[in-house]
């Protein structure tokens, strides 16, 4: 009995994985054939990008501040508080900026996409769209995936910038260190490779957030309860997948 249930669960998992890959591939490929709904892409850029700026600014600023406090306490033991700027900038740009932005945007937008599309499924609006001769994948999914991928890239830059500023605020106003030294250390020890790594990650994360959110939204079943379930799954899977892909991308980029 236990073997049977494990067998069924494993098959369902593999099937879901296959469906997700097909779904995500189709969402991406739709961008290279007509019709492409550019106006919907702009609307989604506004909702995902502009709508998430505030949470990203605050999350980035506070994270940078925390990094400065924690690192300076440790660095003080070695008389190396001068490198706080380097530590904060490196951590924010290579790792925390992309991952935190991804998780914050996932909480806000993967949930919103799953619940919006899920509600449309259970109220037959998706079927109505198909009946009216419009492909919901092109109209709803592709604009969200494209917009999220592009906007997460820019949001990560905002988060990195705010994180370095937050670190500077703590370093200067709380730790009483020199601001010029902080920014100088932050800038001098930053290499193109670090920046590339930090800017490549959000492209993956943005794609994951939107494709997972839309995937769970589009396969919602079971009425309003099903919408809730889809929303939870979308946020959980998107967040876990972001961290997993972060690990993979870091391994690949560090090895080159």
């Amino acid at each position, binding site marked *: 009995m236990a073997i049977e249930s494990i067998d069924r669960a494993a098959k369902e998992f593999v099937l879901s994985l296959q469906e997700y890959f097909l779904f995500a591939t189709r969402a991406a490929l739709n961008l290279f054939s007509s019709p492409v709904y550019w106006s919907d892409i702009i609307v989604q850029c506004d909702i995902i990008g502009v709508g998430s700026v505030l949470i990203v600014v605050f999350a980035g600023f506070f994270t940078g501040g925390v990094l400065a406090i924690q690192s300076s306490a440790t660095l003080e033991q070695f008389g190396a508080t001068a490198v706080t700027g380097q530590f904060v900038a490196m951590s924010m740009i290579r790792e925390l900026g992309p991952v935190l932005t991804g998780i914050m945007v996932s909480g806000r937008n993967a949930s919103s996409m799953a619940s919006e599309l899920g509600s449309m499924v259970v109220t037959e*609006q998706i079927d109505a769209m198909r009946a009216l001769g419009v492909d919901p994948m092109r109209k709803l999914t592709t604009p969200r995936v494209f917009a999220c991928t592009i906007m997460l890239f820019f949001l990560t830059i905002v988060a990195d910038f705010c994180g370095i500023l937050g670190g500077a605020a703590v370093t200067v106003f709380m730790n009483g260190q020199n601001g010029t030294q902080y920014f100088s250390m932050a800038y001098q020890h930053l290499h193109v490779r670090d920046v590339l790594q930090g800017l490549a990650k959000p492209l993956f994360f943005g794609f994951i957030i939107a494709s997972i959110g839309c995937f769970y939204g589009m396969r919602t079943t079971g009425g309003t309860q099903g919408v809730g379930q889809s929303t939870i799954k979308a946020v959980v899977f998107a967040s876990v997948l972001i961290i997993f892909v972060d690990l993979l991308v870091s391994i690949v980029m560090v090895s080159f």
Partner: protein
Amino acid sequence: MNAPLASPVESAPQSTAPVLEFRGITVSFDGPPVLNNISFSVAPGETRILLGPAGVGKSVLLKTANGLVQPDSGTVAILGENITGLPERTLIPMRARTGMVFQEGALFDSLTVRDNVAYQLIQERVADEEVDERVHTALRFVGLEQTFSLFPSSLSGGMRRRVAIARALIHYPELLLYDSPTGGLDPVTSTTIIELIVKQRDVYKTPSLLVTHRLQDAFTMCSHRFDTEKDAMVPLPEGETHTNTSFLMLNEGELIFDGSLHDLVRSENKFVREFIE
């Protein structure tokens, strides 16, 4: 309710080939078949009323008719083309030639009534002036011109169905599919909806397949016609029924009846008798 959507002459059928044809359709979802070996057809200008209790697969049958649901076996031909197994990309332009009214209206919450009704036209990038004109005409047809700028959330259930009918008609469909258009509505609103369907049937002669579990609606459609001079639905003379309106009955996935009102009321099938009595 007196504005024309399209000239009746323009909408008149040109061919006698079936507009919709089911041949041995079977559909199942992880279990026993929801539809089992269903065969029937809808002729040009014909209205077919699909009766049956809730949960017997009526809506699935309707969604199979325009490819929203793909059958496990059998073939569906719509407007002379076999749509079974066609990819979504090929089905989409085919579906645009049909109109479908969903059970709860299925209006897009985030769009105004104008944008809901004009959805297809907007996707086809029709000029705004023409869109507005055609939306006004369609809304006038369903008696809801005043709702032009409203959002669906501010409409009653009956008004939402009427807007859904306007949306289905605006593109001059060659086949209309109604999924329980009066389900959950009060008798007065139901009669208004049925009057619109009868008007569409008699004035524009668009072939249609209507799903319902409400026998009174089906009998009203059979026993009435639309009088264009009075701009209202009027009863047919005693003993007469509408010749182009016939019935199908579904039970537990099987098509148990296919015939006229006359045949229906005289059917000896036990389930049919129980249903109509």
